[in-house]
């Protein structure tokens, strides 16, 4: 057999070192066990109160889409420069705040009529532009210099940026939550006895196209290819003529834009803004990104939807820990994933060649 043929067989048959095989088996069993427990819990609740379950589930799913928009920002940035942009959640918060002012204060819209709808669409574009632009500035002034520094440095800087953004939030919003009128319809409709809010549907109609648009940009456009190349190997990308700085800025812009959209959607569905919104939801979104596999776009969406549903079920179901344990549940998930399966659900566990 030729050398090449031998190698081909080796590749096909390769299952991993004994350690890796064992590890995969443990992960599989753990996953099955956890999954089964979760199933049992879910089934109990379905039997207990089916309509409530459905409503809570739908709500959770809706939140999951919201988290997905934010989580994508985390995962895009981490994928390209291996930085956890701590300030990303606060960007979302500013997006929500911006949208509030844009719709209510600057354009004075409060009703769900044609003007309201148009304002909503305008706000969507404006919020995305605002947050995208802000993110570009943040990258340029806070992170760019630290690109070759040890990870601890930009991490600390990111925390600092987060605090500054929260300060802006405090000044703009005030230190207590504020309520805003919603230009989206507030009514509900019922399906099979389950009441669904109209704005859930609208959120779906905004989020899904955005996600599809993102997928198209990343896979089909030149900038998207540049992003993926830079994510894989920055120096090689630079040698291939890719303007790495511009590509990274572009990534931040997209991530920011999605956060801005999420901010608008959040503000219009819940009608509130608060300066520490970013911290709470940011961590949830980050957990989603890690759950799905950091750096993996589909993973971010999958993880976000899962977390949204889990959180929704936990908060809303009668047989559950309840909302006051919500953060603990999400953080416990984060810790468990990072300790036991840092690659997440869809990520690859790579063995690095040192």
């Amino acid at each position, binding site marked *: 057999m030729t*050398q090449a043929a031998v*190698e081909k067989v*080796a*590749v096909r048959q*390769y299952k991993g*070192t*004994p*350690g890796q095989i064992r590890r995969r088996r443990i992960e599989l069993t753990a996953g099955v066990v956890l999954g089964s427990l979760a199933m049992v819990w879910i089934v109990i609740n379905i039997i207990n109160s089916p309509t409530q379950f459905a409503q809570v589930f739908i709500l959770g799913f809706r939140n999951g889409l919201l988290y997905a928009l934010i989580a994508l920002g985390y995962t895009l940035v981490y994928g390209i420069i291996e930085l956890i942009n701590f300030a990303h959640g606060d960007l979302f918060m500013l997006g929500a705040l911006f949208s509030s002012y844009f719709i209510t204060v600057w354009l004075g819209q409060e009703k769900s009529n044609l003007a309201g709808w148009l304002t909503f669409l305008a706000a969507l574009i404006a919020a995305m532009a605002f947050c995208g632009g802000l993110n570009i500035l943040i990258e340029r002034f806070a992170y760019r210099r630290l690109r070759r520094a040890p990870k601890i440095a930009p991490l600390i800087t990111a925390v600092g940026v987060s605090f500054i953004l929260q300060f802006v939030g405090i000044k703009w919003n005030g230190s207590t939550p504020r309520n805003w009128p919603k230009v989206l319809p507030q009514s509900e409709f019922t399906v099979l006895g389950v009441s669904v809010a109209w704005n859930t549907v609208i959120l779906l109609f905004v989020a899904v196209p955005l996600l599809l648009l993102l997928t198209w940009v990343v896979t089909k456009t030149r900038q998207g290819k540049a992003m993926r190349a830079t994510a894989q190997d920055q120096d090689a990308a630079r040698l291939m003529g890719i303007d790495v700085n511009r590509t990274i800025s572009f990534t931040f812009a997209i991530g920011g834009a999605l956060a801005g959209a999420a901010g608008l959607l959040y503000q219009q569905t819940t009608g509130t803004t608060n300066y520490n919104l970013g911290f709470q939801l940011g961590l949830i979104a980050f957990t989603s990104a890690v759950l799905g596999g950091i750096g993996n776009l589909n993973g971010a969406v999958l993880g976000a939807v899962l977390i949204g549903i889990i959180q929704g079920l936990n908060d809303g179901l009668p047989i559950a820990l309840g909302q006051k344990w919500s953060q603990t549940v999400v953080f416990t998930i984060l810790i468990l994933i990072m300790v036991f399966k840092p690659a997440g659900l869809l990520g690859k566990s*790579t*063995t690095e*060649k*040192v």
Partner: protein
Amino acid sequence: MTLSNELVLDASNISVQFGGLLAVNDVSFNIPKKSVVSLIGPNGAGKTTFFNVLTGLYKPSEGKVMFGDREITDLPPHKIASIGLARTFQNIRLFGLMTAEENLLVAMHSHLKSGIASTILRTPRQRKEEKEALDSAREILDFVGIGKWASEYARNLSYGDQRRLEVARALALKPEILLLDEPTAGMNPQESGVFVDFVHRVRDARDVAILLIEHDMSVVMSVSERITVLDRGEKIAEGSPEEIRSNQRVIEAYLGKAASEGRGK
């Protein structure tokens, strides 16, 4: 020069797979006591990977490594270091912001015994231990010839002295085997010659076996008692310098088939 029959290291049937790439393919390799052996091969031959298996950085997909009568295949790197396998790095990896003697003291970590309590309270035993460690460090630094830089920050040393410090630090582990990873990289022929003498001196005075990974053939030929050649993950030759020098397969591996058959371009 006949090699001792007693083996200080015995690696058998080592294979290392990364994903689908077989970096090391069924290589068996041993190091006799107090010998100086070399591992050579063209780039990508798998030398560094194999080296990393010996030091515990990688776990092989197959095979085992024996250190004396103890299996070390699955031990973590710091454990392997503490039982007597010390290495230097191809790109110098000194602790630049620590002094030369501090670098050595770090290497003595596993041989020192003081815990948190005795360190905080500075018990007489801890003080004695620290003093002895410091004396030992100074002695090693003198031996390698950089004694006068003992209190100098490692990053301030000249390149040659930094290389010596790397060896000194490895010696501070009180090893039975010293693994030197391309120690003469960046040296001119004269410096390499000095280094060859240095290797001999180390072997004789410190009672230690030495494994060298090297690209500089003159160094390899002049210092090795036995040379092992890897190519594309496999061991293709092993023997004395004379045997290797005239080995057909080795020449082919380095220079390509065309050159060995005399058909130059």
